[in-house]
């Protein structure tokens, strides 16, 4: 299947054969199956957020960045971590490509739109703008990787201090502001995405479940934890200038 076919699956004949329909491999071809894959990759990326945040909390240790630099040295040299980088990249790629595919398919299911429509009366905004919030998070991801990941992995022998890299980048109000907006939108993406993933996996028997409370960790506390970093360094830079 080439890229064009991937994004433009036809409506008819995709399921012309019922034979072989019960094979797990054909999961990918059905609507439910594709959403399940979006949900699973999404939840995998959520587990990454937990790991990423917990490591990065070392930024707040008052030791001039020694602990954080040691941690980033470990992360860039450990073989297991380097392997997981590829798994993570696959997770991102899968979530993004499937997300685009599902969005493009869905757009074609109502060729003529309503003259008057009031979606705010029956559904949440977060649920309806997943593609928009997801796209912003993608742009954020590219900028983020370019600023921190690329110098740390491809700088050759003269590796910069990651702590210095982070503190310098976040001292720029524009850059820090971009982070705050992006993280807020990532939280908004997860506001719908986290509980929605469990619904898609069939693990949400009632409207109000434990999942909705666990979801709060992901859409509120984790983005807030990340947001604390640019705020902290912006404030530190301001304080240093003021003295």
């Amino acid at each position, binding site marked *: 299947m080439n890229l064009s076919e991937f994004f433009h699956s036809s409506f008819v004949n995709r*399921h012309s054969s019922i034979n072989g329909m019960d094979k*797990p491999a054909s999961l990918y071809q059905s609507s*439910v199956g594709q959403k399940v894959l979006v949900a699973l990759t999404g939840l995998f990326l959520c587990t990454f957020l937990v790991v990423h945040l917990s490591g990065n909390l070392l930024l707040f240790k008052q030791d001039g960045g020694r602990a954080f630099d040691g941690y980033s040295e470990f992360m860039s040299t450990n073989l297991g971590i380097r392997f997981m980088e590829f798994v993570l990249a696959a997770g991102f790629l899968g979530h993004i490509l499937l997300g685009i595919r599902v969005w493009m398919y869905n757009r074609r*299911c109502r060729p003529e739109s309503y003259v008057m429509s009031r979606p705010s009366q029956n559904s*949440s905004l977060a649920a309806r703008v997943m593609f928009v919030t997801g796209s912003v998070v993608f742009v954020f991801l590219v900028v983020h990787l370019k600023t921190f990941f690329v110098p740390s992995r491809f700088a050759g022998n003269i590796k910069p201090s990651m702590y210095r890299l982070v503190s310098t980048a976040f001292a720029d109000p524009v850059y820090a502001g971009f982070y705050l907006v992006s993280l807020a939108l990532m939280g908004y993406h997860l506001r719908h995405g986290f509980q929605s993933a469990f619904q898609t*996996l069939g693990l949400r028997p009632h409207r109000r479940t434990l999942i909705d409370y666990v979801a709060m960790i992901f859409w509120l506390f984790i983005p807030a934890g990340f947001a604390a970093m640019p705020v902290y360094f912006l404030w530190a830079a301001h304080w240093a200038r003021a003295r």
Partner: protein
Amino acid sequence: MRITLKIWRQKDRNSEGRLVAYELSNVSPDMSFLEMLDMLNLGLARKGEDTVAFDHDCREGICGSCGLYINGRAHGPLGGVATCQLHMRSFRDGDTIVVEPWRARPFPVIKDLVVDRSTFDRIITAGGFISVRTGGAPDANTIPVPKPVAEEAFEAAACIGCGACVAACKNASAMLFVAAKVSQLALLPQGHAERKERVLKMVAQMDSEGFGYCSNTYACEAECPKQISVSYIARLNREYLRAKL
């Protein structure tokens, strides 16, 4: 009451449609929405004009025939009612009401406000039959069904197949409809025999008809005249994965 209607008029499947404005006076607040349309049509017929086509049958909220997109909402501004159960007292004197047909690729407009919903029939047909021994009537309660299970199956069976879930969904997804139909049989012992085959076939049929994928916005639940819960969609996903894996 004085009401201005803006109604979608479309000659047939292949014609271009457009909104046409009609002024109505002497509308009683006690009229149902469909009676108000009847009054409009009577006036149009007297003038020798083409009447507005709309689907309706029982007019008591149980057949699922009627279904209009009224002022941007499936079945109008009230929750838990079909279009026939909506009354003019839900509007104000002097209001302008925009009336459109369900819009979805699998629900093509036949004429004016009437859409072809035979895609739903084909999904039901794809589900097949349940295996029951025919013959003498069995004694009551020979197959025990726990009360909560019976209740849950019954709530799913309340689906009247009106298509409001598809009409309200931003993706024109039929997941709530299929979820209700799969659940009502999967929950009961009589439906267990073909449980796996049924869910696979109904989902495959749903996909091939061109309905969108579920984004879990839950707009369907909010607009369903029978207030069928999206927890049935979670059940459908569960049933599907169990059958598949």
